[in-house]
């Protein structure tokens, strides 16, 4: 069984994003870029299923500029067998990404597609669900446990107030949450090995997907800054302020 994992190149998790002074976007010049952390968890899960003998091949796919090859190399250093870059310089939205991924699913025919539950740049949280819809496949989002048995996948999901478990017939789309696993560190030998693994490049334009924008970004502004308040010397002063000044308790 083949598993496909979608990985996105985003601003590194530890870098604070800064709004460009002209309000046209986030300043990414010279900023460290990494794999979206949720996508790392998705890769790890697929690789673990391969190590468990359930999955036979793990294919990583990324969409964007040639630099996304680095993200694919990272996925392969974590254990993915090969990479596919769907190359485009266009500003694409989740619906476009889902359509491009669907085109790849149609040719690759995986039984499982893993994605992160959201990317930490646009925070949209849409792509996996959209891909499942376009494929007419069942979906399980926010996965914290994935078990495969008898042509179905049982997924425990993080929901408001607790956990929910669903059973999906394969093929299916799973988006992963933080607690599913802790991704391994890529070791130097595996990083070297990853350099020899193949990456296919497909021009997005060749996949017949209309990439015309569906939304228009009018501006990006700084969030309202919150001014720090005062330090209080002790608990008594704190409770007194809460009672008499703020009147919240």
């Amino acid at each position: 069984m083949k598993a496909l994992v979608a990985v996105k190149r985003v601003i590194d998790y530890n870098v604070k994003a800064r709004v460009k002074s002209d309000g046209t976007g986030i300043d990414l010049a010279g900023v460290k870029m990494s794999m979206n952390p949720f996508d790392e968890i998705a890769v790890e899960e697929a690789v673990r299923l391969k190590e468990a003998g359930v999955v036979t091949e793990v294919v990583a796919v990324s969409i964007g500029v040639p630099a996304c090859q680095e993200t694919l190399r990272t996925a392969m250093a974590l254990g993915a067998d090969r990479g596919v870059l769907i190359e485009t310089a266009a500003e694409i939205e989740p619906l476009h990404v889902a359509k491009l991924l669907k085109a790849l699913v149609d040719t690759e025919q995986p039984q499982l597609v893993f994605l992160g539950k959201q990317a930490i740049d646009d925070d949209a949280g849409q792509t996996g669900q959209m891909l499942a819809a376009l494929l007419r496949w069942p979906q399980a989002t926010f996965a914290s446990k994935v078990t495969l048995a008898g042509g179905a996948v049982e997924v425990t999901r993080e929901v408001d107030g607790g956990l929910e478990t669903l059973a999906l017939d394969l093929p299916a789309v799973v988006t992963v949450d933080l607690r599913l696993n802790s991704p391994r560190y890529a070791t130097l030998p595996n990083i070297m090995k990853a350099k020899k693994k193949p990456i296919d490049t497909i021009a997005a334009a060749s996949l017949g997907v209309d990439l015309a924008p569906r939304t228009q970004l009018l501006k990006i502004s700084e969030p309202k800054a919150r001014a720090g308040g005062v330090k209080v010397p002790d608990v008594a002063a704190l409770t007194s302020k809460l009672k008499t000044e703020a009147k919240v308790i």
Partner: protein
Amino acid sequence: MTSILVVAEHGDGAIKGATRAAVTAASGIGGEVHVLVAGQGCSAVAAEAAKIAGVAKVLVADASDYAHPLAENLADLVVGLARGYSHVLAGATAVGKNFMPRVAALLDVAQVSDITAVVAADTFVRPIYAGNGMATVKALDAIKVVTVRGAAFDRAGAAHEAAPIETVPAGPASATSRFVSQALTRSERPELTAARVIVSGGRGMGSGESFQLLDALADKLGAAVGASRAAVDAGFAPNDYQVGQTGKIVAPELYIAVGISGAIQHLAGMKDSKLIVAINKDPEAPIFGVADYGLVADLFQAVPEMSASL
């Protein structure tokens, strides 16, 4: 003509606050607001929805297929109704985030996720990069599919008169997705996203056991208990306690951050709280930069002392 379908979320026989917030957002867009209630044996919920201020009509789809909010079933039902509307809205909750993108893709339209403000009928503000930027986005498609951040809008209150309730047929049921079980954390305390006061713990709590200190304080204040991602990652608290970019977004009247350093990801989830209190032994912790009242102290002494004094 704008007409808006708000997909309701309900549990334990009551409409969720996120749905009331979505109705407020819908009223801000303008036009006629309809609410869809899908569930099994949900007539009481429909009656409650009919009495939300600003709602002109309630649609009810009552079928066993909606006993649990499976994304496949909900999306197909909503898509079948959506063609008559200019907007489809739902709360940006675990349920809304799950089925709404599916609705958007089936309608072949974009979704605008997690809006915090309505600028115009087609233009919305939403946070990106963990709230480090606020994007103003214009949706160009004919039907606008939008999820609404509950903490950013007031909850629509009660109407004087009940809106009419209309039954709609159930949509197709998924043959490939099945509900197996759920394990909900049962708590006497209010839900995080609905609480007036929240007491949250971070990595500084040191262990899961010490969260009992927060429980005691929360009991005194009638508060919900939350946690930072660091505390969740460390196994001190369950994931559904998580407040932050990848957890719950809250805006209570009082947020008490205990042993939380104030990582960007956490601030993204709570910085719209009306009043923030930080208790941390590190005077340099970034949380003090957003706290209205900061107390530099050992939490293991300060929290029990505070509980005792209330």
